[in-house]
């Protein structure tokens, strides 16, 4: 499986994503600069966490306009897989590759802590190695992760089984609508989520619940 990690000027989980991909797939991903308009020939594109352009104006807003995002969209349109984590999720909604928006946390504070999630949908290349309803723990680290969409959109997401991860009962860290933590695109080849699976692949760091996400990708893309 070949992958690429997009690097915006103030991405800061790009290395974390690279290390996790390397550890899980055995191959070092290509690191692609935001001003590059071409993507290398890869199966998976990762939009990492961080602050892309300082998260000024709105998180992910300026990144969604960058040169590389046109290619990322084209990659997704052709059915290529795209994973957006945290700031990457924000970039995906700002680019309209996923519906809805991520708003300031309800408590108005940045929050970094492990949260319990439920895997809601295993019919995807990102989640097939999880069990339906499986409880996992991923850390979150964001100030604007409250998922918002109008009721129709939320109904449709649920109706089409596109909610991949939900915060478990009592665990919603940011006020997200219907406890949504991560959603799939219509074609199910784009996943955006606020929690960080790449921070839980290594035992020393207190958890390995993120591994199955990368294992799913490997299986789906081989």
């Amino acid at each position, binding site marked *: 499986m070949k992958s690429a990690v997009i690097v915006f*000027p*103030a*991405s*800061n*989980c790009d*290395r*974390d994503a690279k*290390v*996790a991909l390397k550890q899980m797939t055995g191959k070092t991903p290509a690191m692609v600069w935001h001003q590059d308009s071409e993507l290398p020939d890869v199966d998976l594109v990762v939009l990492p*966490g*961080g*602050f892309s*352009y*300082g*998260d*000024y104006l709105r998180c992910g807003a300026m990144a969604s306009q960058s040169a590389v995002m046109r290619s990322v969209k084209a990659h997704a349109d052709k059915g290529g897989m795209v994973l957006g984590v945290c700031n990457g999720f924000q970039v995906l909604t700002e680019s309209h590759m996923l519906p809805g928006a991520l708003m*300031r946390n309800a*408590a*108005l*504070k*940045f*929050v*970094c*802590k492990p949260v319990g999630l439920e895997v809601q949908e295993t019919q995807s290349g990102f989640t097939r190695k999880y069990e339906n309803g499986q409880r996992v723990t991923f*850390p979150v*680290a964001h*100030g604007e992760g409250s998922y918002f969409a109008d009721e129709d959109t939320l109904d449709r997401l649920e109706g089409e089984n596109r909610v991949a991860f939900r915060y478990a009962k009592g665990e919603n860290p940011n006020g997200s609508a219907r406890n949504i933590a991560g959603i799939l695109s219509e074609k199910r080849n784009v996943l955006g989520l606020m929690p*960080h699976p*790449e*921070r839980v692949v*290594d035992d*020393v*760091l*207190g958890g390995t619940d993120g591994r199955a996400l990368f294992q799913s990708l490997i299986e789906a893309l081989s």
Partner: protein
Amino acid sequence: MKITPEMVREHGLSDAEYARILELMGREPSFVELGIFSVMWSEHCSYKSTRFHLKKLPTKAPWVIQGPGENAGVIDIGDGDAAIFKMESHNHPSFIEPYQGAATGVGGIMRDVFTMGARPIAMMNALRFGEPGHPKTRHLVSGVVSGIGGYGNCMGVPTVGGEVNFHPSYNGNILVNAMCVGLARQDKIFLSAAKGAGNPVVYVGSKTGRDGIHGATMASAEFDDASEEKRPTVQVGDPFTEKLLLEACLELMATDAIIAIQDMGAAGLTSSSAEMGDKGGSGIELDLDKVPQRETNMTAYEMMLSESQERMLAVLKPGREAQAEAIFKKWELDFAVIGITTDTSRLVVKHKGKVEADMPITALSDAAPVYERPYTERKPQTGEPKYDKAKPVLASLKTILASPDMASRRWVWEQYDHTVMSDTAQVPGGDAAVVRIHGTNKALAITTDVTPRYCRPDPFEGGKQAVAEAWRNLTAVGALPLAVTDNLNYGNPQKPEIMWEIVAGIDGIGAACRALDFPVIGGNCSLYNETNGEGILPTPAIGAVGLMKDVTKMATVAFKRTGDVVILIGETKGHLGQSIYLREIEGKEEGASPKVDLAIEKKHGDFVRKLIEAGRVDTVHDISDGGLLVTIAEMAMPRGIGASIGIAGLPEAIPFWFGEDQARYVIAAPFAEAEKIVAEARAAFITVAELGKTGGDKITLDSKDSISVADLKAGFENWFPNFMAGEEIPVTN
């Protein structure tokens, strides 16, 4: 412009100092020169009150690569790697504008570290606020914490720990001390000596504005039309630009284009150019017309004194300008060649065709005043405080755990991204943070410590204790303590009783560092922390770093199994003077501060560390604030595993459970291992006691009274969020 006595005074220079300036210059200084003298001779830049005493600190060890004097200290951590770290205060700006003050404090200390070639890998912060009930406290806590998070989170450097205290002595003077730890290769460390003549001096980063210009702005005719426009303004941080600056600098450092590099911190262009010239033994000539400017009509005075953030000054090898410029352009940062090094040893500043300053650099450095300020020695406070022996122990435990200085700081550290960079092996809440060296199995342990309430009654013992506690915290996770950076926060050194606190504090730190083989490789002094004549508690914060060879052996405070034997290492006499118990339960701050026996400290610590390194023990907590019972509760709460403990033949329960005797640890280990450990301790003449066993969901004392761990935890966890719930509005943009 004629310099008047008024101007001299408003630049914070004494008559004697000004006389010395006239002598050094051989003429009256220009207004710009006066401004330059005033910042370079300020307490902040020249350490004029403390330099004499700081010299007494031990700064050497085989593993010290760079001691005090550079932007940050450097130690050898094996395999060609170096840890580079430093702590710095941003107290006053944080009181004026807590969010920006704290944010720019974080930005400043990060630049000190990456200017030396290191990638920052961890941040810490030591915070002191006024009493919780003071009308400003909540607002300050909220602003400072979001400012630290706002900057550090964007930089993508994990903020992994620190400390928070509340005390009325900080009502008008909060302390915000930030520490940054970075990682570099030993053969890629950059210094600030601008050696050689004819080399280009380049300016990179943000543009210069009128940020944070202090001093005599009002005295100057240039400010006659002092409009809103020209008012000195608070520095605002731009972490996005800093992130670009970090990446661009590291990219440039990977080439061999740099001769010297230095961040522009306090007194911006002035101190960076003077220090680089001074260290390199060369002169520097600056052309201010070339300086990237954010505002119009800036004067030479303003540019030389501006404290705009996110800027660096570098001296390049000739001919490398284009290569460097390409890198900074890629990161969309300003880049300008603004000067050249010379062989004159003078700082020359030109602006609009006029020479605004021309002065010998040594006048700014070597010739800066050093004072041996008079001090009045004060006998340490003594006495055994009285207390009510009938007070129930477990009820007091609950009260203490839910008190401002002891309650969980989760509310604080959950606002910091403490796991970014995917190397945080121990998150905040334990004895020390542990951050793995990327791609290896080794790790750095990091802590900051000081117990200010011990430092007023006994500044010497307080200084010792701060170092000992830092050393103990590193030991408790299994690290070998290597070196210290300090942040000496005190009141007005021109008062002999305060000067005594400074001198004794430094002596105490020195004594402990020598005994523990724990050199000081950098530091910062923040003096004049006073409002209306009321000084803060002496607060010599100690930041310290230790090394773990094998991160998988790391110990944590949490009880992990049922049936583990709870072992107390160290002697308990029951020292209640200046204890948390006395303050929270009896409502008084009295008696002698606890004394640290440094030889015993070392012996106990070495014993505990060996057990951890050998993989024999994974559950350790040192005993500090609150005493033994608080320590045990802190071990029980993380996983809700209780313990049944007690000790036979106690003459008095309260001092035993709550005394703050030093050099102690609690460890928990399975029975067979525990028996061996106790025997080995006895054989080594270490005081050791078996207190009981872990298990259940209660803490039970002497098989009689008990209290639910969940109950304790509720109080412990809720104090901070409940306190902050009355907050006005979280700082947002």
